[in-house]
């Protein structure tokens, strides 16, 4: 409803949408290894993209996947522009070793650090699932994949976390 009012240039709807959605979007950007300041810059960039793309929202479709699809590409473009994407891909390829090092080096398990060590695509699904409270279908729409693919990413994220947590417990014993 608010999106339709936004399309009709209702400034009250804009204010309401910014108020309601900005915290969710900032959490999404903050969980992407961006610092607070960068996440705030991305939030502003994302709102400009939402503004320019507002005609592509259709009232018959759910709004959250539309918003998160734009946010996701804002983040991906930021990675590309800053040259971080290549570095991230190297990290992704080395995830098991990285996680193992974390386990060995830090006896005191830092769960937040563990989650941030997950590959981007898996962490993204966890954030949308747990922090944003989106359904599997909504995540599939936002990430332009199928529900099966989202389930697989979530399962892999759980398996990785479970494995590392298990190792940590054994290590502590």
């Amino acid at each position, binding site marked *: 409803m608010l999106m339709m009012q936004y*399309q*009709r*240039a209702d*400034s009250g709807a*804009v*204010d309401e949408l*910014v*108020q309601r959605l*900005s*915290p969710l979007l*900032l*959490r999404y950007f*903050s*969980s992407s290894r961006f610092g607070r300041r960068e996440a*705030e810059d991305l*939030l*502003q960039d994302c*709102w*400009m*993209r939402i*503004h320019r*793309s*507002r*005609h*592509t*929202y*259709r*009232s*018959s*479709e759910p709004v*959250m*996947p*539309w*918003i*998160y*699809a*734009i946010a996701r*590409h804002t983040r*991906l*473009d930021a990675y*590309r*522009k800053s040259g971080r994407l290549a570095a991230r891909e190297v990290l992704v390829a080395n995830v098991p070793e990285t996680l193992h090092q974390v386990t060995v080096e830090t006896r005191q398990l830092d*769960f*937040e650090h563990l989650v941030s060590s997950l590959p981007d695509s898996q962490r993204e699904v966890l954030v949308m699932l*747990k*922090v944003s409270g989106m359904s599997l*279908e909504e995540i*599939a*729409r*936002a990430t*332009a*994949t*199928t529900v099966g*693919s989202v389930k697989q990413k*979530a*399962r892999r994220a*759980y398996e990785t*976390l*479970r494995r590392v*947590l298990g190792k940590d417990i054994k290590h502590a014993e």
Partner: protein
Amino acid sequence: MQNDPGDFDLERKLEDWAAAESSIRVSSELTRSIQATLNRSLTAVKPVPSQGTLWLVFMTLFMGCAGLLIMLTSRVGIHLMTPVQLGGISVVLIAIGILFVAKLVEQMIPGSQSRVSQSTVLTFGGIGLFGGLAILFPWQSSPHFVSEGWPCAVLELAAGVPVTGIFWLLARRGTLFASAGLGATLTGIAALVVLIPLQFQCMFQQAPHLLVWHGGAALLLIGLGAILGRRP
């Protein structure tokens, strides 16, 4: 996601983590700044048509461009093909076109339901095209394979670029995110549009020629689209 009682600890940690993430707040100053920026350029907009309408528009453009190119080029190849070859390859090319256009419409609207993945579209498109050419046409090779073939490939690439531009201009009505998938879809559609008249005007209706010089050029065009599409 819980499989056994041991997962309780993981679930609890995930809930704690999600709660900590949810404590992040946006400053009122930043909120006001975003609201002011958006309100400054706020105008009424007309929502894009439904995906079905967009699909129809793009399919009309697809058939229109292919038809125009058929009119402008010679149609000697039609007389060299048997009815089975002519009907078969036309069905294959149009069916792949339908698939690619449906994918493009999905990519234009953020948050669209993805019915088939990009890799599935490309795989089925590739299997359909190369399989169709390999099955429908005779496996005869010519001693002038290269000299007869390269003009077809050059023609396909040269015509594919402006056709890609036409589809890109129309697709810009939606939201186009820089991605390899979008680039591959756009150039894939252009390659199919050009392949239809090229098939109808080509004098060399043999599988090796069609696979290498027609199919190969289409692959090259799709690859270039994927590379260029990644640039933001």
